[in-house]
């Protein structure tokens, strides 16, 4: 049994680090306290390395899982994006307090929140990893909650302003509301199949009449409930408010971690249903396909159109996050395809998740790197798009990172985002979802407007008033994150092929015996590998 723990080695590493961080965060020695972040980094690196070693499709342990090859890709991805976000987190909490301590105030562990913050960060990432690892509904539920609960606190504590509290309260209450929905969906799913094991659910569903009304109702509720995590319609309402209210660094985290968790959940659950329905036996069951279609289309459209109207960068990025969820759903609808990489919608989705993680982190990091004078005389994070004016001239690194990441989010070739979209295009067209592709294309065009603003303000506008203009925060990690992300957006273009191959291998669906007859092409493909 003990070798089964291999599956969660990365989580264990992170968890160990979590415990340590929790402890040293309380230490009276500032050097020790400030080791929280490096320690987290080390843990994430270890997790990434362990993630790569995770049992893959050829491992005994993974037999019976719908996606036996998922773990290495998923865990490494999560750990690496976490590693990218980490440098941003420095100074999110406790900055003023640490300064006060430096000035001589007596350190009071009760007032420090640093340790908790990093711990929550890692716990949430553990949750995301566990989502990808889950083979059981209970596990999945716990993992989802583990992802979310720490983020509620992170949002509320991210800044001391009322806005953060408002964001926290909205996020928490609506999150609980959504959680109840998917929990109920899990209950129905269990009720319909008699098991919480995904492999058993899968077999039950594959039987004739297995995917009955109750199972479907359960799945619909799960999908809608999980839509909260990925900020898809109709659960997208919170996104903009929460992102705006939360500290920028936390918003960046929110844009990635819960979304990743949600998509892994959807991937696993829909994997249990299988893309073996529909008239040609290569699609989701029609009702699921239609609701996902509607959700995807609405999510893109509403996200993009709402983003058009915003002047707050964080709100723009929040709505853009909504819209990108819509794009990724397209991959989910397209399904695993007939074998080749470009036809694999699931791979496209995972690949896009990677692209999105890099791009959006970069954009958030760029604005997190700046602060301006607040109304009360202190310094606050920038939010208005006006604050981005002329950034490239004053702070070229930050400015250009913003430009590059925005253009990549726009989908401008040859940046990373374009290839993400291209793969979604190819897979969706392979699946015959041409209308959806057109909807997605038009949405990309709509989105271009606000991404152009995000890219244009730093590059092309001029600053109005130097005194009122934003300056760099004293946390260099944020600049670093922005630059790394921007470089990644450009440089990863070279490595698209291996990345896509990895995401393809991660999404190889174990064929069910009953399904094999329906999908001869897939069988041949699998046999060849």
């Amino acid at each position: 049994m003990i070798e089964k723990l291999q599956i969660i080695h990365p989580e264990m590493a992170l968890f160990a680090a979590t415990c340590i961080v929790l402890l040293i965060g309380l230490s009276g020695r500032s050097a020790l306290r400030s080791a929280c972040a490096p320690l987290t980094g080390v843990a994430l690196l270890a997790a990434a390395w362990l993630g790569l070693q995770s049992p893959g499709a050829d491992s005994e342990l993974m037999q019976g899982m719908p996606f036996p090859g998922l773990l290495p890709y998923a865990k490494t991805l999560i750990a690496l994006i976490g590693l990218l976000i980490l440098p941003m987190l420095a100074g999110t909490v406790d900055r003023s307090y640490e300064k006060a301590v430096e000035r001589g105030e007596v350190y009071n562990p009760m007032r420090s929140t640093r340790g908790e913050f990093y711990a929550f960060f890692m716990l949430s990432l553990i949750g995301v990893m566990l989502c990808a690892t889950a083979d059981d509904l209970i596990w999945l539920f716990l993992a989802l909650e583990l992802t979310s609960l720490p983020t509620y606190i992170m949002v509320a504590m991210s800044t001391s302003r009322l806005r953060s509290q408002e964001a926290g309260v909205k996020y928490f209450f609506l999150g609980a509301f959504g959680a109840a929905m998917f929990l109920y969906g899990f209950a129905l799913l269990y009720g319909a199949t008699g098991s919480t094991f995904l492999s058993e659910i899968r077999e039950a569903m594959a039987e004739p009449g297995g995917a009955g009304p109750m199972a479907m109702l359960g799945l619909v509720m799960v999908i809608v409930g999980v839509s909260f995590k990925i900020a898809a319609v109709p659960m997208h309402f919170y996104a903009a408010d929460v992102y705006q209210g939360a500290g920028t660094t936390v918003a960046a985290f929110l844009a990635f971690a819960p979304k990743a968790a949600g998509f892994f959940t959807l991937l696993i659950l829909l994997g249990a249903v299988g893309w073996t329905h529909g008239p040609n036996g290569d699609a989701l069951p029609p009702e699921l396909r239609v609701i996902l279609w509607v959700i995807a289309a609405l999510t893109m459209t509403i996200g993009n159109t709402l983003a058009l109207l915003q002047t707050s960068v964080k709100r723009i990025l929040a709505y853009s996050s909504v819209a990108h969820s819509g794009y990724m759903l397209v991959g989910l609808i397209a399904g695993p395809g007939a074998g080749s990489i470009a036809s694999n919608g699931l791979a496209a989705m995972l690949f896009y998740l990677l692209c999105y993680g890099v791009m959006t982190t970069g954009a958030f990091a760029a604005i997190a790197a700046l602060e301006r004078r607040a109304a009360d005389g202190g310094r606050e994070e920038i939010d208005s798009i006006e604050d981005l004016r002329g950034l490239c001239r004053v702070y070229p690194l930050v400015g250009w990172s913003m430009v590059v990441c925005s253009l990549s989010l726009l989908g401008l070739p040859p940046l990373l985002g374009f290839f993400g979209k291209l793969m979604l295009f190819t897979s969706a067209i392979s699946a015959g979802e041409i209308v959806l592709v057109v909807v997605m294309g038009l949405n990309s065009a709509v989105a271009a407007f606000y991404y152009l603003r995000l890219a244009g303000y730093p590059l092309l506008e001029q600053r109005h008033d130097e005194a009122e203009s934003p300056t760099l925060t004293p946390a260099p990690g944020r600049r670093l994150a922005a630059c790394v992300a921007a470089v990644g957006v450009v440089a990863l273009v070279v490595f698209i092929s291996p990345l896509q191959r990895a995401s393809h291998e991660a999404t190889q669906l174990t064929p069910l015996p009953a399904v094999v007859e329906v999908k001869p092409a897939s069988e041949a493909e699998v046999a060849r590998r």
Partner: protein
Amino acid sequence: MSLWTHIPGAFSTLAATGVDAGVVDIEMGRPLFLLIPALPALAALLCGLYWALGVKSKFPAWTTVAALAGSFAVTLVAYFEIAAPGLTHVVHGFRWINIAFGAAGGERMLFVADFSLYIDSLTVLWMLFVTGLATLIALYASEYMSDDVGPGYCRFFFAFSLFVVAMACLVMGDNLLMLFLGWEGVGLCSYLLIGYFFKKPSAVNAAKKAFVMNRIGDLGLMIGIMLAFLHFGSLRYEEIFAQVAILQQDGGDLAWTIKAIPYLLLVGAIGKSAQLPLFTWLPDAMEGPTPVSALIHAATMVTAGVYLVARMYPIFLLTPESLTLVAWIGGLTALVAATIGMAQYDIKRIMAYSTVSQLGFMFLGLGVLTSVGAAFHVFTHAFFKAALFLCCGAVMHGFAGQLDLRKLSGVQFMKGWGIVGVAMFVGCINLAGLPFTAGFFSKDMILAEAFTTPGFTALGVIALLTAGITAYYTFRVYFRVFLGPQHFEPGDELHGHDEHDHDDSHGDDGEAKTHDDGHAHDFHPHPPGWAINTVLVVLAVGSILAALAYVFPRETGGWVKGLISTSSAAGAAHHDHEASFFGLGDPHKVMYYVSGVIALVGIAIAWWLHLAGRTTAATSRADAIKQKIGPVGRWAERKWYFDEIYDFLFRYPLLIFSHIFYLFDKLVIDGLVDLFGRSPRSVGAGVRPTQSGGLQNYAMGMAGGLAFIIVVAWLVVWRMSS
């Protein structure tokens, strides 16, 4: 040396159709003849260079004169080598536009439009007077334009030389596309030269009008050319004529394409030769310097239409109805222009209308199948009309731009103006068709032919009437300006001087300044110098001697006839006119008397109205008549309101359409685009209220969304099961 070789047969189109050499024997000509266009081209290049170098002397003029004279000399060689023996030569220059394509039949064809010269007697005839007159007029202009020495001078001679190049391409090209090259090229030069005084809005407008109206004609020509290519699979005369010859032999029904070609070519000819309804640009073109008017807008370019019809005569002959149209257009134009000419006061405009009218005669001649007559009239007209214009130019030059015949009188006997007066007189008698002048003979050929060709008698009457009118208004000018009491008022402008760039003209003229504020009391007309006088003498003598070409050499029935009969325009040979005319014998002989009398009557009327008893410059007996006939005179003076009608029918509607289109573009098309572009924002604005910030509103949305999605899923299931 590959450039000089003849096109190998394999490269020419339609090798497969089996057409043999055709009606004329075509040989390779000597590359020497390429000098005819090349020398003026060199001159143009040099003038451009002078301009760039800022040459301020008469260098450009001498360069041009020398080049044109050289060109003329080469043309003479061509005459003796090719035209006189009645040969046809093709000289290959270089490949202009060549491309292979697959024809509908499947064979591989080559579209060929080379820069090659097709030299036959028609070509040589035209080039003789083009290069000859151009040389003379360039000489004339060297003095006439001397006030502009400097950039303007270079510009003038650049365009002048370029014009001859273009004219050579037009006349000598061996294919229709090269003709088109020349056709548009002369249009360009005409544009540049009409707009020479580019600070005058009227000149700029006239230039634009000339170009645009020509373009209308060019459109027809271009379509005609494309149709010809479609039908014959080639644009080379050689091959077209060969096929036409076959068609003529075969008889039978012709395809609509070939029937349409002459009409389309005619549209081009009408535009270039200022015929009804596209003639209004020519009088306005008189805004250009007078040498230009003489060369381009009287002697050469405007006869390009005649040349086109003559050159493509075989195709016109295939569709005789088209020639009827040619005749009617020519006859009516002649009459209309003559009536307008009667009522004008600007002597250059009178000459312009007379040009239009005479061009009408030429078209009439072509239409009634006397291509010889038409060509002969072109030839004689070139001389005497050039002379007339140059005389007008001399007057204009001498009297500070004065052209109003009410303000000049008795110029003939002023000191230094004798040669001008005599040359003017010679030109006038030719134009009026006084017996035994060249104009008399050439006009007679056309008149006689009009009367004798069945169905054209009415046109003959019109033409005769026009001849009378022509004699009247010609001598009206002569009597008013050159005879009678001596009187003059200087014009309000001194051509050239106000064209100097004031910024850089400080150095060159104290004299010009006195001219600028010159009034009648301190104005002294300056009579023409040696260059102008020489040219006028040569032209006057030429005009008179041209009559000899009607008679000699006897064996070919005249020089021009001999030339034409060996060219493609020899179509009239098929036509045997009646030997008798109203029972009075040889129609030509009869017509001598009739038209001679008519001309004399016209001159007599002019004498009575404009010379006899006239004591002032401004008034004459004609004024009373003009009073009597009331508005008709005014209508004629206003050119029968052709310009206004065109504006009303075409220009204003187009302008209105343009404005409407622009508004449509801005409001509707771009508006739709903007609407489309804004629609996402509207959607966003519509959805935005859902983002109210209220926690429970969000929850409501989420719960509602869940319900909605469940309903959607249920609907799908329901639809599938039913």
